[in-house]
């Protein structure tokens, strides 16, 4: 089986030669290659080369065309601050002053900000790995994008103080996400992962997620599926336990669960959905390979009977992770 076939089998709870393993290696690929992160997140060719290098080094089942969570907001008009070896951050939010929403510019993925570079990375990666390895693009989710357009604090206050305007902004964010995701699928991504940490129940109440975020996730997911995404993968970092039961309604096929989510509760909430997780990200920095191997083995045993599992970290593996710990994760399935 190749990686894509293996993941397909896990998705459908079918037998496979081994459990798929996807280390969430994003910027760490740059560190591994000795490239500064500032270049990695701005140059699609560099990103693709680093991801290919990391794939060759670790031999896991997916590559990620993923820069950071500020790509969309920058393309809309926010100003970012770039640092040599850290992810960029928003310096000036495009919607900070709650101006006229009609003035917000719907970005063109072929032209605006770093979107074209991300598409370039996808094209290179897909050309390189074809249908052997999963090529994952990335969009942020609607709540995260709104928080990146005006800051999370202001977004949350807006939701309460001016709910109609907040909903309009959420709808604008959804249009941005769909447009960018469709361009990624067209460029060759097997799927764009939907990364929405601001939708975590630690940030917003479950009712807020159900009423405002879920309907927009449904639209995004069904649009990506119609456009040819092989499936949809939702990633809500943090303790997302209480919103997991809504994922099937959104059409999510792969559900990430972070280290703070009990695997048994995730399985109970999503009996027919493929789960990926959930080693503690920080362990890749400060634990030993033996510890990672033990934790991974424990998880594999937990899911052995059920299937529908991709071994992974609960969230992004930190930039400064020890490579031998990532290797230990990958080796655990072999």
């Amino acid at each position: 089986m190749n990686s894509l076939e293996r993941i397909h089998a896990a998705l459908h709870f079918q037998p496979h030669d081994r459990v798929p393993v996807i280390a969430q290696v994003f910027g760490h690929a740059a560190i591994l290659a000795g490239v500064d992160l500032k270049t990695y997140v701005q140059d699609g060719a560099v990103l693709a080369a680093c991801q290919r290098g990391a794939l060759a080094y670790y031999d896991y089942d997916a590559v990620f065309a993923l820069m950071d969570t500020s790509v969309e907001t920058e393309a809309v008009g926010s100003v970012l601050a770039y640092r040599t070896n850290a992810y960029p951050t928003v310096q000036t939010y495009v919607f900070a002053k709650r101006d006229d929403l009609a003035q917000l510019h719907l970005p063109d993925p072929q032209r605006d900000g770093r979107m074209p570079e991300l598409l370039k990375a996808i094209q290179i990666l897909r050309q390189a790995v074809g249908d052997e390895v999963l090529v994952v693009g990335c969009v942020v989710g609607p709540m995260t994008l709104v928080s990146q357009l005006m800051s999370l604090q202001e977004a949350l206050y807006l939701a309460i103080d001016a709910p109609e305007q907040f909903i309009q902004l959420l709808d604008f964010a959804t249009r941005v996400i769909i447009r960018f995701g469709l361009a990624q699928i067209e460029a060759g991504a097997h799927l764009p992962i939907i990364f929405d940490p601001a939708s975590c129940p630690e940030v917003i109440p479950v009712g807020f997620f159900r009423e405002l975020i879920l309907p927009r996730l449904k639209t995004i997911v069904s649009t990506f599926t119609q456009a040819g995404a092989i499936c949809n993968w939702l990633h809500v970092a943090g303790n997302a336990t209480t919103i997991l039961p809504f994922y099937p309604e959104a059409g999510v096929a792969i559900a990430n669960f972070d280290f703070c989510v009990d695997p048994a509760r995730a399985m109970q909430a999503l009996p027919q959905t493929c789960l990926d997780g959930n080693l503690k990200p920080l362990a890749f920095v400060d634990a030993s390979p033996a510890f990672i191997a033990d934790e991974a083995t424990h998880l594999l045993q937990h899911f052995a009977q059920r299937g529908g599992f991709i071994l992974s970290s609960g969230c992004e593996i930190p930039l400064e992770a020890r490579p031998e710990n990532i290797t230990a994760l990958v080796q655990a399935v072999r």
Partner: protein
Amino acid sequence: MYSALMQPLVQALVDGDQATAVAQTHQLQAAGLAREAIINAGIEVAMTQLDARCTVEQFNLLEIMLAGRAVMSVMKVLYPSDAAMLPSQGTIILASLEGDVHDLGKNILKMILTAKGYRVVDCGKDCPVERLIATARQEAPLAVGISGLITTVIPQVRQVRTKMHALGLTQIKVMAGGAALKQATAASLQVDFIGETAFDCLHYVETLSGGAL
């Protein structure tokens, strides 16, 4: 003795209803209630109710932020000038360290500590360790609190207590919180306490200052 009178204010604070909370405060003042009574029987009761609701599974930033904003607005009504605030329970310094520009968690803790009578010195986000320590030297706080959303600040976190001890600031406790730092143990971060939620940090601070208001 004021519970019936205070109930609308308490409810407004717990609901995060800023406008109603402020209106209720004005009414209570007009009825002749002293601000200390409004704090003890109103804000304090609301904070206790919020604390009880904030279990690990029910805690969410939105509800806490709204309640915190309402509390701060009431405090502004009660004390229009900062100089006229109640005697402080002690000083706490808060910061997000250099490279980390996320400060929502820190801001929430600031609101909670302020509402509970602590004087908070906010070093802001992206704060170098040296500036945090210089501020600690100047302010002699009960504790410094570090919020961290990204793991790359961990080496800086590990320096704080050692550097303060080297300067003889051995009485000042170091507490940490935030998505990245919560993954670690206090021992590995070389801090005195790690809080799962902002209220955990408040409870820790209360042990340093000798109890709640």
